[in-house]
């Protein structure tokens, strides 16, 4: 098979993967960690520990706060100092458990050996329970609880598990490093998820700019010999790693607006998630570590790292370990340059989904003044969802909610291609993101009203029987 890619839109930013040769280093432990209770999509977790409790590495410290939520485990051993709101990287208060680090005593149930365990347990439900109990969430960006995604609604059948190794965001190299350094674990994780999903095939999609990762993953697939797993080379094109784009590229199917990937028989998981699933199921190790890239444009090589970090380590502390913030940095970003969040509070803590600290220089990141739209249509050409950003921007300014919904503002995946490619530097995505929120609000309100009406009708109909 040739190189695959999605069918519409997309841009080609320079990949800037300067930290690709930096092997993963393990960070030392700080004195204090702050574990956020909102590290996943969905309801925040509820703390189960009290101030003064002593905890071990891997011990549960919070339980899910709803159906879509996840367990949180202590990343260190020590004493709980406080359970209080603390500012996240956007400066908004979020409940955190503060733990003073004492030694490094792990929960004895965790297998800390490096031995590869290839035998996959038979019991599907037990595997799912283990994934849930270990607090595994999607590490591709959205941090959606993995056990929910791996357990499709009745009647929905998974035909293909797509493992996302595209890492299409420029600069980021954490997925690349784990594909180089831990390919076998990732493949075993994929085989476990295949099993959970009822034995569907699995495609590992990797962009063409990572030939070493393609080679190492292919070798691991061949060596381990699980049936139905293949490595697929993808073209280098952003946002190749977007869930909907990846399904389009690999399966040539498109998820309907408002639908889920499973509707077209697809389940997409990140390679990092696969590693977490391996560690959870085979090693009983909860999701308390992840790999994060420290890099940026025009910064010296000695400030660039790929770190294995414990969740809850403050960003400022990690940055200090990495050699400090370079002079040239004008903006700090958590995540990639296309979809990551700007850090306004470096004291914030790392969470399960942290993938990078990116330093961007003034000239790389400063926005240019907005000029008039010249109707070149480059935004529409770039939109991987086939939307017309210039139109959505205009409708948003006119507060035309109906028009926005008709033109599918709710389908926006916030990939940033429109703003990236606008020659007039119009802040398209800034506005469309708002528009999307407003339209989603309308759609939700309508759905709720329809549900209430249906229930009322049902209630009215019942006495007649």
């Amino acid at each position, binding site marked *: 098979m040739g190189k695959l890619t999605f069918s519409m839109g997309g841009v080609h930013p320079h990949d800037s993967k300067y930290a690709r040769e930096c092997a993963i280093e393990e960070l030392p432990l700080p004195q204090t960690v702050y574990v956020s209770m909102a590290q996943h999509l969905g309801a925040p977790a509820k703390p189960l520990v009290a101030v003064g409790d002593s905890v071990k590495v891997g011990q549960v410290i919070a339980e899910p706060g709803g159906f879509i939520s996840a367990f949180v485990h202590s990343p260190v051993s020590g004493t709980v100092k406080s359970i209080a709101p603390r*500012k996240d990287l*956007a*400066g*908004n*208060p979020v409940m955190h458990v503060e733990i003073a680090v004492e030694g490094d005593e792990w929960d004895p149930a965790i297998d800390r050996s490096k031995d590869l365990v290839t035998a996959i347990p038979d019991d599907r439900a037990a595997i799912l329970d283990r994934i849930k109990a270990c607090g595994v969430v999607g590490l591709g960006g959205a941090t959606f609880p993995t056990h929910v995604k791996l357990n499709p609604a009745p009647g929905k059948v998974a035909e293909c598990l797509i493992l996302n190794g595209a890492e299409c965001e420029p600069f980021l190299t954490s997925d690349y490093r784990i594909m180089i350094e831990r390919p076998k674990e990732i493949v075993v994780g994929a085989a476990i998820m295949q099993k959970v999903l009822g034995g569907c095939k699995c495609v590992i999609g990797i962009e063409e700019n990572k030939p070493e990762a393609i080679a190492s993953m292919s070798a691991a697939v061949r060596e381990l010999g699980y049936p139905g797993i293949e490595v697929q080379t993808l073209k280098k094109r952003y946002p190749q790693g977007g869930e909907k784009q990846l399904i389009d590229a690999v399966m040539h199917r498109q998820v309907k607006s408002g639908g889920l990937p499973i509707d077209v028989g697809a389940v997409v998981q990140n390679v990092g998630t696969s590693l977490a699933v391996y560690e959870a199921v085979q090693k009983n190790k909860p999701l308390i570590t992840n790999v994060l890239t420290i890099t940026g444009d025009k910064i010296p090589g000695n400030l660039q790292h790929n770190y294995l970090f414990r969740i809850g380590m403050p960003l400022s502390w990690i940055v200090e370990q990495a050699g400090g913030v370079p002079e040239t940095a004008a*903006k700090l970003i958590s995540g990639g340059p296309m979809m990551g969040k*700007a850090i*306004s*509070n470096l004291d914030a803590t790392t969470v399960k989904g942290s993938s990078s600290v990116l330093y961007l220089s003034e000239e790389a*990141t*400063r*926005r240019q003044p907005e000029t008039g739209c010249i109707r070149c249509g480059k935004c529409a050409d770039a939109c991987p969802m086939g939307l017309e950003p210039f139109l959505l921007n205009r409708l948003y300014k006119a507060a035309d909610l109906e028009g926005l919904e008709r033109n599918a503002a709710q389908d926006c995946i916030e990939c940033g291609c429109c703003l990236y490619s606008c020659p007039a530097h119009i*802040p398209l995505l*800034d*506005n469309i*993101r*708002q528009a999307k*929120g407003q339209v989603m609000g309308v759609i939700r309100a309508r759905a709720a009203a329809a549900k209430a009406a249906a229930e009322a009708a049902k209630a009215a109909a019942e006495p007649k029987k």
Partner: protein
Amino acid sequence: MTQTIIWTVAILTVLGLLLALILFWVARKFKVEEDPRIDEVEKVMPGANCGGCGFAGCRAFADAAVKATSLDNQYCPVGGDEVMQKVASILGFTVAAKAPQVAVVRCNGTCANRPRTNEYDGVQSCRVKAALYSGDTACAFGCLGCGDCVAACQFGALSMDPETGLPVVDESKCTACGACTKACPKHIIELRNKGPRGMREFVSCVNKDKGPAAKKACAAACIGCGLCAKTCQHGAITVTDNVAYIDFTKCKLCRECEAVCPTGAIHGVNFPKELDKEAVKKRIADRKAKAAEAAKAAAVEPVEKKEVANG
């Protein structure tokens, strides 16, 4: 040549007549019968179509007023009592007078009071900025300074002060339609009673952080110390979530709270004289001393009485 002109004139005349007839017929055929009072009411409305009343525009307001059985649920904030009296007289209702209101910006986080901690570089919209993060200062509650309220105001009553970075309300233009209060994502702008001759007291801060954090973020923050609430003789001040609030229906404009506030978060506007803090503080101290004396006197009184009081 002459013939061409004659023909042209003739054809255009016939065409004009024909179209006029069609228009006349259509107007007759599709005429909508409306209560004539709707027009009358609409005529006395301000005609700003601002939506401050909760209706789509002035005509929608008029339509609802004509159909309503009383005007209790309707109020035109722009026209105020004057317009409401006119509407009432047209429709034969009576309306109670309502105190005129004005938009009040409850943030004093000027560039001087509230140091910037980062630099915002996105689209100049408070809504977008608020959705992104807590703001470019350490105060997560204060004014974001992008002027969504200014854009929302149809009466030109709001403007950004480049010196302070905060919006300023022009009281003479403000109609209290409430558009700005809805536009502000931080809910800083509040409609308050204008007060006698425009005099009013308000807490110019909505920071819910604990005292030290609030103070660190902004020199003029309400730190929730409660001194104002303790001082107030009229029970007008409450402190919830580390921020004080003055109930304008209870406030008697004695300005004691303003005098005792340690951070200057309480503002009094349109008073004829500047506040003499020391004098007011002395007045409070005297009153306290008197009260203490009275308490002492009460304590000296026979023991039995006190027991009764306690029992």
